[in-house]
């Protein structure tokens, strides 16, 4: 067998395997879309194309006692606040660690990295107790407020990026009399858009998809996040048995992230590579 032939055959095999895998990866999503457009009576039909196409499930979703719009709004503003908090406070710290010279810098940075080892379950219980004493359980505050005190992951990611920005820029600005804050805000932030975008997407995704924290802090419907609402809805539907409406809810809940993903795929993937390669 010639080498060309061998490569051709291997390519075909690779294609087949990748295609099979892709069907397994995307299949559940296709099923979700398909079911959400089926009539309740057709919910268990094993065809991908709905026998009768309907939009009733979506209409029902917004009319049931579960306030879907409220869930959506809660998820949106909590995720946005979380993202703003993380971008701002992580960038502030990352700038100090990457650019400024001060006593105890390396020790502080090491201490920050060590916090990556603390599982979220360890902080959850004392945080819950504190927020309970502040009468904030049932509100969204415990979900977004901690985002405003920095974090090891975001600080690390941005610091690594800040380090790649040529020092000459800061030096030149310094000669021209720029302050640290000006260098941070007018030079480092605008030049770090790719890293900031990657971190923003990561943080937003994490907040939007989070289940454990809203389950602890905003445990009761209707005033909670989409994830908890869907989990609650799931239980109701299991008894009532309307999977079509449930699927339309699931579809709408993933739609914002899907849209972001299709437009900013590069940032998604860069975020993982950035955090993974240089850790």
């Amino acid at each position, binding site marked *: 067998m010639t080498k060309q032939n061998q490569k051709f055959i291997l390519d075909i095999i690779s294609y087949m395997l990748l295609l099979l895998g892709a069907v397994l990866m995307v299949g559940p999503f296709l099923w979700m879309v398909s079911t959400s457009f089926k009539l309740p009576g057709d919910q268990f039909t094993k065809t991908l194309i709905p026998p009768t196409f309907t939009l009733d499930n979506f209409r029902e979703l917004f009319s049931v006692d579960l306030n879907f719009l409220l869930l959506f709004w809660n998820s949106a503003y909590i995720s946005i606040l979380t993202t703003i908090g993380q971008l701002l406070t992580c960038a502030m710290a990352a700038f100090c660690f990457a650019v400024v010279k001060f006593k105890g810098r390396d020790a502080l940075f090491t201490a920050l990295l060590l916090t990556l080892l603390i599982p979220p379950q360890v902080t959850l219980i004392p945080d819950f107790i504190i927020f309970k004493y502040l009468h904030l359980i049932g509100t969204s505050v415990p979900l977004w407020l901690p985002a405003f005190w920095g974090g090891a992951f975001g600080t690390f990611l941005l610091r690594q990026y800040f380090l790649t920005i040529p*020092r000459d820029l800061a030096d030149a600005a310094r000669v021209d009399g720029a302050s640290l804050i000006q260098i941070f805000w007018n030079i480092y932030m605008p030049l770090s858009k790719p890293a900031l975008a990657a971190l923003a997407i990561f943080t937003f995704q994490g907040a939007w998809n989070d289940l454990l924290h809203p389950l602890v802090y905003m445990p009761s419907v209707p005033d909670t996040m989409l994830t908890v609402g869907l989990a609650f809805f799931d239980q109701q539907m299991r008894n009532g048995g309307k999977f079509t409406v449930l699927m339309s809810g699931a579809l709408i809940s993933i739609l914002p992230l899907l849209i972001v993903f299709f437009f900013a795929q590069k940032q998604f993937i860069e975020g993982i590579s950035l955090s993974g390669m240089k850790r």
Partner: protein
Amino acid sequence: MEYGLKPLGREKFWLWALLTPTFIGLIFGALGSVIATVLLSFAEWDLLTPPTWAGIANYVELFKDEKLLRSLTNTIKFTVLYVPGVVIISLFVAVLMNRRIRGIGLFRTAYFLPAVTSAVATALVWNMIYGKDTGILNFILERLGLQPVCWLCTNNAMYAVVIVNIWGAIGEGMIIFLAGLTAIPHEYHEAAAIDGANGFQQFFRITLPLITPSIFFQTLISTINAFQAYDYIYMLTRRGGGDSSVPVVVFSIYRNAWNFFNYGGASAQAIELTVIVAALMAFYLWLERRYVVYE
């Protein structure tokens, strides 16, 4: 100390202002939480009556209480199944994608999709797929002339849940491995091919040793994720009364604290989890020094 800008005069104040949120997080968020959880683990507290000192009773329970022991063995079993699954499958996918063939971007999008979307939403579909009488999986099995399986019953739920968790993690693993694979210079494979090495030899003698850093990293991350896995387990295996057919430690912590108001016991479990993960990380770092090749 490395090079860096020196704060001038009043800028010292601004420097610490920039660092203040991180300080708050370090002192209250991290250090304070760890100390508080350790203290709580030696106490009995339901948040309604004043806390009482419990000594090591909560830790004794960890080794005596059958349910708590079962949650630990479940977590270990889950990890043992999940970590190799994620590492091997995502490496395999990455190797296939690293071949220069057309349409790779489309495949990458497809494989990454589960990593983007919420586990809660996709778990709802998996529930339909796994359904005993109405599910697609059993429909396919029956078409193939096989017996239907009760996927989410106690005997099989662990495997069903591990499969879904792996499905959700392949996308990220694949990206990590692709980054490692593309960093290998082409000359290595070309030189080996000239010397007559076949594809398998090239993979095991060149590719695999050169991506040990990626394998190490992915194993580490997957292990941490395995010990914290919650969403799919909650969505697919929960039962009435806050129970689950695959109660892992994280599930048990939640139940202990927020269903039974046993915050001391839950804290002891959280500490248990932390100690095990820390020990595993130390073991991995030891392995890294021995076996991981950095160029």
